[in-house]
């Protein structure tokens, strides 16, 4: 969908089915793609969870994150998720916990490259995020696992959405709207005003407003679309959307 086409769909494109629907699909390509989306959405929360809640060192956390998703794919246990019992992200976290416990019990630490298909995951970037927020395992008190996992799930979702949005606007040759969004909404601290951005980019404040409105709208649509893909059911998606954006989805 083109960025300017969104109004035709009532502001929200319901294009993606839930993760569980897709990883249970008989078509292997659909399953593989669904699994890829799940990995993209969940690997960072899982990795950070292992680093900070389980206090694993960098190498063990990397190995176990790789091993966790490889095992999930090979043994297809994510498909066993039952929507009535818990949210899908809670299920993923609990599965990760069990995986770590099993690995510890069997004393069979996964070695990198030891028969596990390696996923192209940016562990260095994830480690920089851990370091940049003083979220070190040495911190005195471990975070609440569910709260922390949710927080990092949202961050990963938004991060991925922003990357996709950047690519979309670059592809369309519309870098200014995205740059305004980056400067105003993604800055680590607030400070720049619409008027300052207008001066800097040779626009009127109304143009800055309209450009930001367009990118924000697109961001929300993409984030909701990605969120739907990472939830276990439509009901869960609606609940997550309410928690995330304060929005009711019908």
């Amino acid at each position, binding site marked *: 969908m083109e960025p300017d086409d*969104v*109004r035709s769909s*009532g*502001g*929200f494109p319901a294009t993606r089915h839930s993760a569980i629907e897709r990883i249970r699909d008989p078509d292997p390509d659909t399953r*593989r*793609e669904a*699994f*890829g*989306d799940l*990995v*993209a959405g969940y*690997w*960072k929360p899982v990795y950070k969870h292992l680093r900070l809640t389980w206090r694993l060192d960098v190498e063990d956390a990397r190995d176990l994150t790789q091993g966790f*998703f490889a095992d999930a*794919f090979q043994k297809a246990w994510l498909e066993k998720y039952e929507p009535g019992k818990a949210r899908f992200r809670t299920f993923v976290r609990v599965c990760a916990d069990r995986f770590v416990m099993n690995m510890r019990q069997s004393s069979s630490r996964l070695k990198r490259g030891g028969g596990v*298909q390696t*996923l*192209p*995951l*940016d562990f*260095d*970037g994830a480690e*920089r*995020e851990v370091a*940049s*927020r003083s979220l070190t395992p040495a911190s005195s008190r471990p975070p609440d696992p569910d709260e922390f996992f949710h*927080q990092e799930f*949202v*961050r990963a979702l*938004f*991060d*991925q959405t*922003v*990357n996709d949005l950047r690519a979309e606007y670059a592809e369309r040759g519309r870098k200014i709207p995205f740059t305004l969004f980056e400067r105003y*909404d*993604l*800055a*680590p*601290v*607030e400070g720049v005003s619409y008027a300052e951005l207008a001066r800097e980019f040779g626009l009127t*404040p*109304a143009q800055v*407003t*309209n450009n*930001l*409105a*367009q990118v*924000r*709208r697109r*961001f*929300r649509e993409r*984030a909701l679309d990605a969120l739907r893909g990472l939830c276990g059911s439509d009901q869960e998606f609606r609940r997550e959307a309410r928690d*995330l*954006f*304060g*929005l*009711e*989805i*019908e």
Partner: protein
Amino acid sequence: MSSRVSAPSNGLSDAAVTRLRALGRWPEFESGRYSVVEEIGRGGMGTVFLATDDELGREVAIKIPNALASASLERRLRREARVLARLEHPGIVPIHDAGRLADGRLFYVMKRVRGETLGDHLRHVPDLTERLRIFERICEPVAFAHARGFVHRDLKPDNVMVGAFGEVMVMDWGVAKTVDSLQSSVASHSLQSQSPFDDAQGDPELVEGSTVPVDSLRLQSSSSVGSLRPAETEVGTVIGTAGFMAPEQARGEAAEVDERADVYGLGAILFLLLTGRIPDADPRAALRLIKVPRPLAAICARALEVEPSKRYQTATALADEVARYRDNRKVHAHRETALERAIRFGRTYRTAILLVLAYIVMRAAVAFLAGW
């Protein structure tokens, strides 16, 4: 197995994540006329933002539905905007503008109302006479709406704002309905007219005066003002608020709901003003227990009658009764004893009685002195 490779990054900061989450509810206007300042209220149906109207240089309040692409919420917001547009009264918040946000959601712009909710206001108004004056001011816009063919259906302290000078605004007309027995031809006609604010289907709820079905009720017993909030109106489940909702409304008898349902709501507000509590199943007992003056208790109990035909038939009649009590006149709802009548007579003609007594005493004193 395949995976989308995430681009190398340091991740979003906590501040950026918080800002992005806020984008979901933050309205974006294509015109650039309004600049949102902050969220000032959030209910089951919509969120109200404080904004500036940059064209006219004034503060306004903007209401948007909480849901994306929600036909039912859109209908309710549209209904509320149109009801407000029809009700030009100092006690009803005026609407300035309406339209669609960049994401397609409806919004409407209204006057920014300053003040506090009735529940909060009552905490620093202990004087009964002043409370009754406020009550009469609440009745005025409700009676005006009835005369225009609208029933509010969700009168409660949270939907009444009181300003610094005691001015009253009745808010939240999102569940108001038209009533055939009133001037519904005027109301229905105005609500049926098509505009860019309409959807293709129109709004059958408004035209037919029907209601959203009551699926469930969350009733609460007599409790203090501070516990009002848990029983707020919920989208698609309850029209009205338990404790302030007329029995026929609570039973989901939509056809039976008319202006007398609002009389019940006003009665519940009066009960709160008198007792500090929400009425329960036996309001008369509570009124007796708290020693509310009997004429006032009778007015309140009559407004809270289960059977609509036994209530005051209009908001004006209820307000008049309260005014009669405040003016020390006879109240129709209460049969006075001889003693009560004498006391009321004494209060009404206190000055004259005192003058006569003083004259009699003086004459007696003169006669006594002359004889002595």
